């Protein structure tokens, strides 16, 4: 049993500006949430996208997390998410359980046209 999942995160549409201008980050995400360090009273469960978003906001985001994460723990409205090349709305959105090797894309739609 691995204790972390290898996940490739990709950013476009201006999303990369929040992540040090990196278009892609390969990272190791814990398999189980909530983390022991957190004071959450959630039941332990396999990592899903909602956990990933919260984890990204605390570990990867350097500034202005409110431009990425909304008050409900999802991405801010206007950010599109793709799971392995498909719209996350087809994959269960926040509840999608992460798998080792997943590729998650975040695209901002908020910037001028």
């Amino acid at each position, binding site marked *: 049993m691995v204790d972390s999942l290898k996940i490739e995160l990709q950013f*476009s*549409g*201006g999303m990369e*500006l929040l992540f040090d201008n990196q278009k892609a980050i390969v990272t190791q995400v814990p398999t189980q949430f909530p983390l022991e360090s957190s004071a959450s009273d959630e039941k332990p469960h396999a990592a899903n996208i909602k956990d990933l978003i919260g984890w990204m906001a605390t570990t990867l985001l350097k500034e202005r997390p409110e431009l990425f994460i909304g008050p409900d723990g999802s991405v801010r*409205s*206007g950010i*599109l998410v*793709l799971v392995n*090349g*498909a*719209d996350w*709305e*087809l994959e269960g959105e926040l509840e999608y359980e992460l798998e080792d090797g997943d590729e998650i*894309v975040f*695209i*901002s*739609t*908020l*910037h*001028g*046209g």
Partner: protein
Amino acid sequence: MDSTATSPPPPPTKKPLKNPCNLCQSVRAILKRPKTGQQLCKECFFHVFETEIHNTITDNKLFSRGNRVAIGASGGKDSTVLAYVMKLLNDRYDYGLDLVLLSIDEGITGYRDDSLETVKRNRDQYQIPLLIISYKDLYGWSMDDIVKEIGRKNNCTFCGVFRRQALDRGAIMLNVDHIVTGHNADDIAETVLMNILRGDLPRLQRCTSIITNDTSEDSSGIETSKILRSKPFKYTYEKEIVMYAYFKKLDYFSTECIYSPNAYRGHARVFLKDLEAIRRTTIVDIIHSGEALSASVQANESTKLPTMSNCTRCGYISSNELCKACLLLEGLNRGLPQLGIGQTTKIRRMHDAAALNSTLASGLSVPNPTASSGTEESPNGANKESSSRGGVVVTHIKDLERLTTMPTLNTI
């Protein structure tokens, strides 16, 4: 294990397709359409997306064969996808359109200069000629200059007013019949909401029409009145535009304008997204309500819209004697940048009174102290104006010369 021995290979061993496309049923879906909830594979999505825009264009008879059409191009997602799709549909359905890219350089260092590089790449990628015209050349002021003068409070007013005219002026230079812009369904719904909140009925009407033509009462050769404007993406959702650009790997620029927090629109946007989460059809509903409201405004005689005529200074379409851009420019050139911001009727009255004073003064041609004090503030403005007319600044649409040659792919 050795199932290959038996023939034919049994399909059941193949994992059933997860999320098959609702149209072709044979490929995995990659997008859930916001408009319909349908799930589509990449190829079916491209087909549906392009065909819907084609239908919008033909149902509304936006163009006629032989039209020269300028695509307002900022380098952002919407106009990049618009340029790509216009080119594609023009070729696929043989519209017979002569396409040009038209970009406005507002003069914003670190924002527009970079996005114009994207437009130049689009010019080469799509093989569409490009004209870039700048605020500096047209008005004598770049947005950087304006922000230095007035700060960051009302700069978006200047930019918005100047951009609309600049596009028209560029269109005249290019001798085009029509300007298309990348406004999408989400943008239009936001604008409807904002115009309703402000009670701005003329703008409500303009923002919901798919095609507009600024016809003035005085149709005596003022050329802006001939140029049509339309929004082929009126029914196209932002999500699909972004997904289309992503899957087609289109090259677009995505940075927020450094001067524009645009808080009001931002709130309208978040509000719409929240509504949409509850009710999928929110965007079209709001566009529809905008259309219904402007129809009833039109039907109601008592709420007459302002009659349009032409600006006495530059000839641009205006509901006042001086158009908003000339009023703003006068303020900038006189060192009174607040002129034209917010409540403008008082300022206009001051302007009219000053003009009357100076006419009276010159008509009487009697040197008297009242007359000289009445014209006291004009020398400054008058000097600026006459000197700029000698240079590159074009203040009259009538003075604007058409380009003798169309921009080519290699120039500019």
